[in-house]
């Protein structure tokens, strides 16, 4: 998902305390920042929420790429609002992670030097306007699948951040579907572009849910702690089931010749993405990894004088006020 393959940390705590902690989670209680928690819970959450936050921030790049080239002023205003929401999502999540004792700057630095990851999906390019529609429809659609259950996660600040995020996501998916629908119902060339966007983004969207359950080594502990609510394959299946009829409505074809409704299971059978491609992208070898990190590093470096200047100004002003009192 926005957090993929989050490694869960081993915990070496007093068994009695651990059991009491697990009992609170099982009873549906929320864990708050000042409550006792196992070190592994804290560290895993920092990694997961941090990765989620970084995804929101890096995720602005492929869409921001098209703001100035949106086909109409209305689409431009909508996309601008959507991308601004993603900045907000990043900020809600960073704040939630900070309550666990990591600083914002530490997290930023870990993103910038590659110690922390962001979702593999944002290492794919947005080549044309149809891709922007497809991103809202598929990528935000996949994000929603994962974020809705996370509203019930055990960690209070994370749950509250997810509730805010979910309130805003539906707009994201609907504006995307609306944009790609315009193209699917447009000229033959436009329809071809819509189909091409779906062809390129379908499997990367399926990868967002992370490796298949049989290769997903960190799930059990995270699920017991309720920081992961569903398995990767469960969510992927739900996404496929939801998205196929939406594609059919558009008259577009999901690029999977083996896709078919399985009456017995009550689900679509579908082909898994190429996992070797997924692992390459995670390792840094996707089409845009270098560009994305370079863009984030440049923004951070170019903004340093503003951050320092505003802080110096604030300190000077506070000093003056102090002297006058």
């Amino acid at each position, binding site marked *: 998902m926005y957090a993929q393959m989050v490694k869960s940390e081993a915990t070496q705590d007093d068994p009695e305390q651990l059991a009491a902690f697990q009992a609170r989670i099982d009873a549906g209680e929320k864990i708050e920042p000042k409550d006792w928690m196992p070190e592994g819970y804290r560290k895993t959450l920092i990694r997961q929420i941090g990765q989620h936050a970084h995804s929101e921030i890096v995720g602005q790049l492929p869409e921001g790429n098209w703001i100035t080239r949106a086909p109409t002023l209305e689409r431009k205003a909508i996309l601008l609002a959507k991308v601004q929401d993603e900045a907000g999502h990043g*900020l809600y999540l960073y*704040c939630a992670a*900070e309550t666990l004792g990591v600083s914002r700057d530490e997290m930023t630095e870990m993103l910038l030097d590659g110690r922390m990851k962001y979702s593999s999906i944002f290492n794919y390019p947005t080549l044309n306007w149809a891709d922007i529609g497809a991103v809202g429809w598929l990528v935000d659609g996949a994000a929603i699948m994962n974020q809705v259950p996370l509203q019930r996660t055990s960690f209070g600040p994370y749950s509250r951040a997810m509730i805010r995020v979910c309130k805003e996501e539906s707009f994201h998916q609907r504006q995307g579907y609306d944009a790609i629908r315009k193209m699917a119902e447009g000229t033959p060339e436009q329809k071809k572009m819509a189909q091409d966007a779906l062809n390129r983004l379908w499997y990367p969207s399926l990868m967002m849910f992370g490796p298949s359950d049989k290769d997903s080594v960190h799930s059990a502990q995270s699920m017991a702690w309720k920081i992961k609510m569903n398995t990767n394959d469960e969510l992927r299946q739900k996404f496929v089931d939801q998205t196929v009829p939406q594609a059919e409505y558009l008259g577009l074809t999901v690029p999977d010749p083996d896709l078919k409704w399985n009456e017995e299971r009550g689900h679509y059978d579908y082909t898994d993405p190429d996992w070797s491609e997924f692992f390459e992208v995670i390792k840094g070898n996707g089409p845009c990894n270098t560009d994305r990190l370079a863009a984030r590093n440049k923004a951070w470096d170019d903004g340093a004088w503003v951050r320092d200047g505003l*802080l110096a*100004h604030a300190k000077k002003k506070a000093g003056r006020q102090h002297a006058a009192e």
Partner: protein
Amino acid sequence: MKNEWPLWEVFIRGQHGMSHRHVGSLHAPDAEMAIKNARDVYTRRNEGVSIWVVEANHIAASSPSDKGPLYEPSESKVYRHPTFFDIPEEVGAM
């Protein structure tokens, strides 16, 4: 880190005369910027008509380990709730 902007807690009062409610936090160099940032981060959809910000390190909070001494005393005082008292039906609504 050394030059990180301080953390501010943000409280927003919605449209309908409710109290300010904690909505989240953000970083800003000073109060003025914190309010401006809070406008952008927390009120993009008409969520509020008034913003309070306070530097997070100025908030004093009760500790989870005081839960017992602080809140248990009220558990035994059921008479503080109106449903503790039976009012005869003939008396009517009260």
